[in-house]
């Protein structure tokens, strides 16, 4: 087993009197898909926002490669190698695929201080990434507006790879996709992990999670209530953790 890329120790987040996350300990390993499951309001979104630098934890710490880090903005998280693919993807439909992949950090050649684009290099780089991901998009110059939902996910993943992300957080990547598209995104997710990235997948769809995840963590009411290797568990058990019907969860909730 690899050494963990990121360790969260006792991460707690309070919003006033409300405790959204309470003492979450977990490890994220490179080359592994980790699924976060939980009902609405269970704390998984708050947790990824802490990872992405959008929230700073009220308590606890994050360690990357064993070194404690604090993120004061999403930019800090990005420079530490954490890329978040938001539900709304943050793509500009009027620009081409390669322009989107490089948006905000274009390859450029400065002439008298004016940043001219190096279109050819950007195009080649994106074509390479798309091929590597087997995304079946032939033209990196096509406008993103003409792509399907799954292809847009592929573009967003390319963006993350291009930032040399070591940890990619995917927030409900299959929520709005048709069946065939979902398959494609799941295989992209798998391929991302095979490339050595750590992947955190948030999903409501247990079938999807069982298809790609190596490890499954269940959140409930701001706590981590279960951590299972996929092969040691089954969907029924996970559902009982999510709903709180599992005896372990009951015992835990009674204790508090």
């Amino acid at each position, binding site marked *: 087993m690899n050494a963990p890329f990121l360790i969260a120790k006792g991460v707690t987040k309070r919003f006033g009197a409300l405790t959204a996350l309470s003492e979450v300990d977990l490890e994220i390993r490179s080359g592994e898909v980790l699924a976060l499951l939980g009902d609405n309001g269970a704390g998984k979104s708050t947790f990824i926002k802490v990872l992405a630098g959008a929230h700073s934890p009220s308590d606890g710490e994050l360690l990357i490669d064993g070194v404690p880090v604090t993120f004061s903005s999403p930019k800090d998280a990005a420079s530490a190698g954490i890329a978040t693919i938001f539900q709304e993807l943050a*793509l*500009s439909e*009027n*620009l081409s695929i390669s*322009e989107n992949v490089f948006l*905000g950090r274009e390859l450029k050649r400065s002439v008298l201080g004016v940043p001219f*684009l190096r279109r050819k290099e950007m195009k080649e780089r994106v074509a390479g990434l798309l091929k590597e991901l087997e995304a079946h998009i032939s033209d990196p110059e096509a*406008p993103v507006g*003409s792509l399907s939902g799954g292809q847009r996910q592929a573009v967003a993943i390319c963006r993350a790879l291009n930032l040399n992300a070591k940890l990619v957080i995917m927030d409900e990547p299959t929520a709005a996709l048709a069946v065939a598209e979902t398959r494609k995104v799941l295989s992209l997710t798998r391929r991302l992990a095979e490339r050595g990235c750590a992947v955190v997948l948030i999903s409501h769809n247990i079938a999807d999670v069982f298809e790609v995840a190596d490890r499954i963590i269940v959140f409930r009411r701001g706590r981590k209530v279960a951590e299972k290797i996929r092969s040691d568990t089954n969907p029924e058990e996970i559902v009982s953790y999510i709903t709180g019907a599992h005896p372990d969860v009951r015992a835990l909730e009674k204790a508090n």
Partner: protein
Amino acid sequence: MNRVRTLQSPALVLSLLSLLWVIVIVGLFALKPSVLSVGTITTVLQFSTILALVSLGQGMVILAGGAGIDLSVGGTVSLSAVLGMLAVKAGLSPFFLPFVCIGAGTALGAFNGVLVTKLRILPLIATLGTFFVYSGVALSLTGGSAQSGVPDWLLWWGRGVLAGIPVPFLTIAIPAFAIAGVVLAWTSWGRWVYAMGFNERSARLVGIPVDRTRLILYSLSGTLAGAAALFSLAWLGSGRPNIGQNLELESLTAAMLGGIAVLGGRGGVGGVFAAVILLVTLKTGLLQLNVNTVWQVGIVGALLILVLLADRFSESWR
């Protein structure tokens, strides 16, 4: 889907505008054959210079989205021209006139930018307010009278003609459009403008400095209006407090007609350039045919509505 998109590219806008232009020319020729001469071309281009500069700024502000619009351009042109002349009257060496005009324009534009980006006032309202303020101040400073005293060397530039083409058109309008076109198409700044114009949220998420870019674009619109003011001085020989009248309406029409999407993110400056030439040709033609100026403004307004309708329909085709 892809084909529709290609059809809506700048090439389509340009060919449509050229077609309209040919129709205007042919119509004009049919009604009054004597108008077609080199002299008319010179006149059209001379009249185009102010509108071209102002429309370029207007177009870029709209392109950057966020409900961007600059209604104050007319007021900025008037006030920059008046301020320039008043400074000369107050004893400033005329050598500095270009700097005063362009500097005043930039400052007035930057003020719009601050209202929009820092104080978060809706651009339509912010620039409507500054439009009244700027044009009001221009009138009250002068009591409504034209300010004379433009130096000869400036007139020489403003009225010069080279091979049938007015010198100011060659030396400021064309370079301004060429630079803007290159920056928008070939630099990362250009990509940022398109990205924030189309989807501001995603532009912010990827780390584009949206507010700073927008502030710069409003300032730039002011700079171009200041340059237009300078040209008006050099051409007319005096600073008129109402020189910018109707420019907001006409520059908006030119930007829309030139294919810049009202909500931003689509369009280019080439179309704006063609639209300016078309509008001024139409106006010059109407003037030659002795159509009342009141009607000219009405026709510009009607054209604007037509363009917005066309935009609306092309939207539903997609």
